[in-house]
């Protein structure tokens, strides 16, 4: 359910960013999904397919990049966390600042326009 709401937020933002661009269309949307983003990637992808199957969308490709949960350990610096355990894999400290992999990010999108002779 909340995957669909994220997709709607994503598409609203992309629309905002394309509104001033004149004629053209979005052919690809590139997102980053962290291990700790709290979404089901399959549900996100199917919600995306459903929401972009009709105009003004022309079935853009969804590119999903998975990233690990990353944290800054007070003693060891940047570390990657696995298995949802919030302990530094190097020193066992729990004093960690999460610094990535806990979110869904819009990285980029591809905008296609017709060249002069076609338009």
């Amino acid at each position, binding site marked *: 359910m*909340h995957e669909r709401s*994220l997709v709607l937020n994503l598409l609203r*933002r992309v629309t905002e960013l394309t509104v001033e661009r004149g004629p053209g*269309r979005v052919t690809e949307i590139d997102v980053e999904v962290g291990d700790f983003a*709290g979404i089901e990637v399959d549900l996100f992808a199917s919600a995306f397919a459903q929401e972009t199957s009709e105009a003004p969308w022309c079935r853009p490709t969804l590119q999903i990049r998975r990233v690990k949960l990353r944290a800054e350990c007070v003693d060891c610096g940047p570390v990657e966390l696995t298995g949802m355990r*919030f302990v530094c894999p190097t020193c066992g400290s729990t004093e960690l600042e999460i610094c990535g992999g806990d*979110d*869904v990010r819009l990285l980029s999108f591809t*905008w296609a326009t*017709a060249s002069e002779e076609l338009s």
Partner: protein
Amino acid sequence: MTAISATTPAPLPREHVVVVNEPVLAQQREVAQDLRSRCTARGILVVNLVSSPGAGKTSLLEATARHWKNRYRLAVLVGDLATDRDAQRLAPLMPTAQLTTGGACHLEAPLVARGLQALEPLECDFLFVENVGNLVCPASHDLGEHVRAVLLSVTEGDDKPGKYPKMFRLSQLLVISKLDLLPHVPFSVTAAIADARLIQPQIDHREVCAVTGEGIAAWCDWLEFARQRVLHDAAAARSPASPGASVS
């Protein structure tokens, strides 16, 4: 070779990549941040109450109002999929606005901001937001709260923090509810707290029973302290003139 169909337009020749690199929820979070600062400035502590369905959020709010009576001014925004049942329970106790999500499984900051508007003019010390019962989706949505309290009732099992890590990681307080039922269920309060601390070492905990009133005073004290801390920090941030001054 170029078959042009009505449903799938042929690729357009010029493509370029527009780099954005921002969280999908960036705009929602701005709304949340703005709501939080406005509430801080007005002396309001915003509490986001989350739990699985039926863990006792509304009952806890009823018990809180009974405990404080007129000591503090309370208000509540109640998230509900479709009905106004919780709003009807709470309306006699405090200013109440209903946030109907229309089937969505969580609240989002813009809806909360609109709900707050519906309560204006509002004078209050604590604004509660009762989220939709769900331990998954609401976890990702900042509603502009100062604190997030997650309720876990003893009938749900003490293994739940590890199963819903995001919610417990992002909460400041674990409220173990329905304490009166403890003799009837295999639930270890210490195991639940230990499990939550593996996810969020800093999480506080309180144990409550909305039926007998046990632990309600301690929960209210926690809220009172959280409010003082937020207001104190805000005051300190406003007057950075004497950084060496001692904090009373």
